């Protein structure tokens, strides 16, 4: 019953000075618009940069590393068990980089419900032969379909069709930089030399552009069978198993688990790219800081306007109190004035923010290092809109709270006597 009256009084007070109200609301709208746009834009860019690494990096990589033996013969001799031993004679075993039992490891991984998918891989060191010059290079043997499903292989194949790599025998997708040096067009045959000295001819079916030119100069892709042939190994030969998880945050724990279970090296994405994570979180922090600053500035604007309004309405407040409105009622009136400015300005701000983001999303953004990006990236994360909405209400409430508390404490006698 009282609520309706208070809403009515606040509405009349708001509309009586609608220009002032509009200025206050525009302050909030501007703050929220900028918050949404800025955050959407910055985290869009952030995601894009993250994607450069994260999309192509397995969450866990299983591989073998050539290491020195952990125990030397003297360690095993009981008489010297408690001594400091420094005689080291056993060199690293001529163990292949091959993952033993790769078939059964893959089967076990496929049964793990936490795993999104697995892509086996072979890394082969080669030389690209260009006339009399040899360029060092790396050929990655991949399972084309799985690599595309998990690591978006096709988005980086800028010329040619990635699936030809699977369908054409002895084919290769060359890194753009390497292809330019070799002057190899699609359909040409190139020659490579393996680390064991064997020569091999491969047909170019596409170019690969990662956005990192150092990689493009060196790396190329072939399918698993071709690479195994290249190395003269059997069909079970695999050097890496790339695992993608449903939840990236579990990677460190699961990497440890796989290391213990399969007795091979396992590295998680967080460890492999720790510097990258730091950069990403700092960027996020900066964009939030800027956004929150905008909102607080808008909040001070509202505070000022409400404060002014209350000074102007002193007489009205006094008379409302004299005719029986209590301090709480007056407080509620000014709080609801502040909140309606907040709600109105906030909703408009969210809409304008969305509009401005959509506009930025249309601006062309072409850069050589990012072949897949055509316009500026925007992140339309609903949580930004939630934060923006809630923050607009909280700031306007706070901005309204102090002036309205003052209004509720005004003594009508002081004002009436002052006339």
């Amino acid at each position, binding site marked *: *019953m*009282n609520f309706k*009256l208070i809403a*009515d*009084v606040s509405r*009349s*007070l708001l*509309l*009586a000075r609608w220009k002032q109200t509009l200025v206050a609301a525009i302050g909030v709208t501007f703050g929220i618009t900028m918050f949404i746009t800025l955050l959407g834009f910055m985290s869009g860019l952030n995601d894009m940069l993250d994607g450069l690494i994260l999309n192509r990096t397995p969450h866990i990589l299983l591989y073998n590393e050539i290491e020195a033996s952990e125990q030397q013969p003297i360690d095993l001799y009981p008489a010297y068990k408690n001594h400091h031993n420094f005689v080291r004679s056993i060199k690293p075993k001529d163990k292949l980089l091959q993952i033993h039992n790769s078939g059964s490891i893959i089967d076990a991984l496929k049964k793990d419900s936490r795993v999104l998918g697995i892509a086996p891989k072979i890394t082969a060191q080669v030389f690209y032969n260009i006339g009399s010059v040899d360029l060092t290079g790396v050929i990655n043997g991949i399972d084309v379909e799985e690599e595309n499903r998990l690591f978006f292989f096709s988005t980086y194949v800028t010329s040619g069709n990635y699936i030809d790599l699977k369908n054409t025998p002895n084919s290769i997708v060359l890194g753009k930089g390497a292809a330019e040096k070799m002057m190899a067009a699609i359909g040409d045959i190139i020659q490579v030399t393996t680390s064991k000295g064997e020569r091999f001819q491969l047909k170019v079916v596409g170019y690969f552009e990662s956005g990192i030119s150092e990689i493009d100069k060196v790396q190329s892709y072939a399918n698993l069978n071709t690479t195994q042939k290249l190395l003269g190994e059997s069909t079970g030969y695999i050097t890496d198993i790339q695992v993608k998880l449903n939840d990236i945050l579990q990677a460190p724990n699961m990497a440890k688990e796989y290391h213990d279970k399969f007795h091979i090296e396992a590295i998680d994405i967080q460890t492999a790219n720790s510097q990258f994570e730091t950069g990403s979180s700092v960027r996020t922090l900066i964009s939030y800081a800027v956004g929150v600053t905008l909102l607080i500035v808008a909040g001070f604007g509202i505070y000022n306007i409400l404060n002014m309004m209350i000074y102007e309405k002193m*007489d*009205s407040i*006094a*008379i*409302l*109190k*004299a*005719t*029986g*409105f*209590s*301090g*709480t*009622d007056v407080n509620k009136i000014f709080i609801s004035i502040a909140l309606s400015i907040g709600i109105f300005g906030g909703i408009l701000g969210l809409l304008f923010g969305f509009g401005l983001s959509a506009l930025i999303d249309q601006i062309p953004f072409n850069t050589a290092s990012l072949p897949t990006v055509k316009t500026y990236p925007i992140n339309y994360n609903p949580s930004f809109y939630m934060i923006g909405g809630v923050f607009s209400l909280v700031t306007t409430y706070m901005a309204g709270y102090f002036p309205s508390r003052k209004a509720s404490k005004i*003594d*009508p*006698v002081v004002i*009436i*006597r002052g*006339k």
Partner: protein
Amino acid sequence: MSDLILEAKKITKYFHDPLTVQVLKEISFSINQSEFVSVIGKSGCGKSTLLYILSTMDTDYEGELFIDGVAMRNRKEAELAKVRNEKIGFVFQFHYLLNEFSVLKNVMLPGLKLGKYSDKEVEHRAMEKLKILGIDNEALKNPNQLSGGQKQRVAIARALINDPLIIMGDEPTGNLDKKNSEIVFNIFQELASEFNQSLLIVTHDNEFAAKTKRIIEMEDGNIIRM
């Protein structure tokens, strides 16, 4: 016989700024139902101060105040607001109408706050009060479109809306010319005689006071005649 509606017992008030001055010295008096009382005295004698204490707006005093038999001391601010809303109608020297609202709405506001009647009924009652005061034609105008005398009549209508126990006036004719003063006085007179309304009017207009039933005269914080 007539009932006691307002009773003041030994009300004492000090002003502390800039010096401590005693403005009211143990004022005691009472007002009965349907009495038309005026308070006169030279300016600075404390008559307005007394009125603000009696109206519950000023709570910084010593002594006891009873309105409708209920003690007003040490009540919470919200309770006092309720008392003002329900039992006291106030008319000031300056009209204090809210320009954001129409005349009708101004009259309705205290009634809506009381919440005793539905919005429709409050509106109907407000129109009736305006009719009594002869300004029902101005109901939908804005207060700043009215003349001074009309505004004061709207203020009286607003004071009447909740059928208060007593109407208090702080120099209600102070800002008006002779003709309008007379109109306002006649309205008060009519309210007292026809509607048995109790009135307590502070004034320095001795002519005005002379026409009321009972005069309380004050000097230096004391009542010298009542």
